[in-house]
């Protein structure tokens, strides 16, 4: 069988935690299926990081160290990964499902005419056979898939905890022809950060698509947040619809919060949202769909219409305060 090739990501001068999670998962598959784990690091001035990964479970680590790779570039990464797949004899390529991963991994699969499965939270190996576990319908259903031949997979960041590992620390420079690269990195920037810093709130009451319209946010969600001395938040669909500005968004592309109390009203619980609030000390979810994925991370749940519960709760809290 071919080896497993982990495509590493670096951020702020360090190997990303998501890459460490990949190493743990890859080593589990490697043990179960008798394969070798190898890694690839792409960047500029990344020799030290590559050595670190190579000694911490990454196995033999190929290094593409080039000024052209200083910032992420889809063409640089596609060329580098394809060269590395050939050099490493990999028939399983693993990448984290980050903005880099979802940008480049499918291109690799297409170039290799290979199987592709994204956002896996679990991969089970049974000798030569691999089963891939992921969610569909925005988190509502589980799916189990199988693949034949060479496979490129992306793994959900945070799906497992990274475990300590070690390997012999061998790194190897990889020459890649980057002359055909057409995409051009211009700059990184930050979206406008005006508004409430939700990360500082002790209590957050968030509304989702179930709230129905912007007026209901001020009529129903804000009063509950107010009575609890907290802040109001929102899920992505609310911001996409233009009901609230981006600074209210809780989730992977918004703010990651961990307040003492998080109340999710009419929020289904897509993974992007869960990533943003599952670290909360106590989570209360109110949703009329008993199968909403939000109930999987909540401590307490109410299966009911939020318009029946939330105003009544706000009133009762007002009375209790006296």
């Amino acid at each position, binding site marked *: 069988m071919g080896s497993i090739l982990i495509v590493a990501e670096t951020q702020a001068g360090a190997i990303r935690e998501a890459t460490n999670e990949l190493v743990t998962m890859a080593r589990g598959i490697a043990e179960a299926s008798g394969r070798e784990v190898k890694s690839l690091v792409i960047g500029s001035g990344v020799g030290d990081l590559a050595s670190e990964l190579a000694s911490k479970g990454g196995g033999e680590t190929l290094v593409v160290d080039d000024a052209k790779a200083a910032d992420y570039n889809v063409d640089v990464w596609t060329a580098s990964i394809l060269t590395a797949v050939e050099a490493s004899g990999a028939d399983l390529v693993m990448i984290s499902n980050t903005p880099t991963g979802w*940008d480049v991994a499918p291109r690799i*699969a297409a170039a290799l*005419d290979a199987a592709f499965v994204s956002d896996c939270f679990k991969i089970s190996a049974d000798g030569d056979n691999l089963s891939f576990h992921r969610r569909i319908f925005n988190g509502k*259903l589980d799916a189990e898939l*199988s693949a034949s031949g060479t496979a490129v997979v992306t793994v959900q960041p945070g799906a497992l905890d990274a475990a300590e590992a070690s390997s012999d620390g061998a790194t190897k420079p990889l020459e890649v022809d980057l002359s055909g690269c057409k995409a051009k990195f211009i700059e990184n920037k*930050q979206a406008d950060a005006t508004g409430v810093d939700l990360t500082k709130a002790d209590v957050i009451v968030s509304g989702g698509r179930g709230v129905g319209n912007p007026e209901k946010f001020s009529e129903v969600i804000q009063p509950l947040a107010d009575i609890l001395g907290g802040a109001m938040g929102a899920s992505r669909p609310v911001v996409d619809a233009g009901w609230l500005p981006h600074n209210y968004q809780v989730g992977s592309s918004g703010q990651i919060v961990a307040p003492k109390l998080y109340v999710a009203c009419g929020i289904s619980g897509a993974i992007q949202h869960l990533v943003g609030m599952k670290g909360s000390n106590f989570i209360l979810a109110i949703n009329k769909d008993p199968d909403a994925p939000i109930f999987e991370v909540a401590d*307490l*749940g109410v299966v009911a219409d939020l318009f029946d519960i939330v105003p009544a709760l706000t009133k009762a809290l007002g009375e209790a305060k006296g």
Partner: protein
Amino acid sequence: MKVMVCLKQVPHQDARLDIRDDGMWIKEDSIKFEINSYDTYALEEALRIKDAGEAEVVVVSIGPDRVTQALRTALGMGADRAVHIKDDAADGSDSLGLAKLLAAVAKEENPDLILAGLMSDDTNLSAVPPMLSQLMGIPSASGVVKSEVLNGSMRVERELEGGALEVVELPRPCLISIQTGANQVRYASLKGIMQAKKKPVDVKTVEDLGLGGQVGAAGAKVTVSKIYHPPKGDSAEILEGSTDEIVSKLVGKIKELGLL
């Protein structure tokens, strides 16, 4: 400029998800369908490019008869032409199979720009658009929240984590996959809907596209073993009772947390 937009028709986001007896997909007979939400933002992005200058917008979709409705909606919103890949032989295609079908159409259409949604609301694979760009040998950018047409290129902003954005420039022809919220999607006007009836919808088969035996279940390298409702296991304690009883328990819990 010619802009090709890839659309997928998916189960309506509030559709009941009942699992088929063979466990491989959901029951489709009594649910409503709609254009994948991510693709509506891609279509809107294409229509804005058309509004701003000279552009022809061609929408392409793969699927059975019901997909015609999605294409008519897109034409009603302002797209000029539609291509419908309709063939049972395409059933069971994996992402790469779908990308190959779209690439075959793209090779005939030769667009300056291809737009698609970042992922679909049903499979959430986010696979087809970058695959299509690789097959076409053109650069791509995924998860775009802002795009600008420059002379011979596209300047786009990709959404990263935590509010960060990456600005990249791609020479055309190129492919961009659009993230939700990139724009505000328009409704089809009554005039638009009437005009849509006269706009051409070309139907293509797998053979027409020269992909016999390469797509569909026969060509698929990924297969679904089963889909199922997640096991309840370690999830929330669900409160029972009347509204008053529930509210009373919630007030008690909030007091317990020291937050009253």
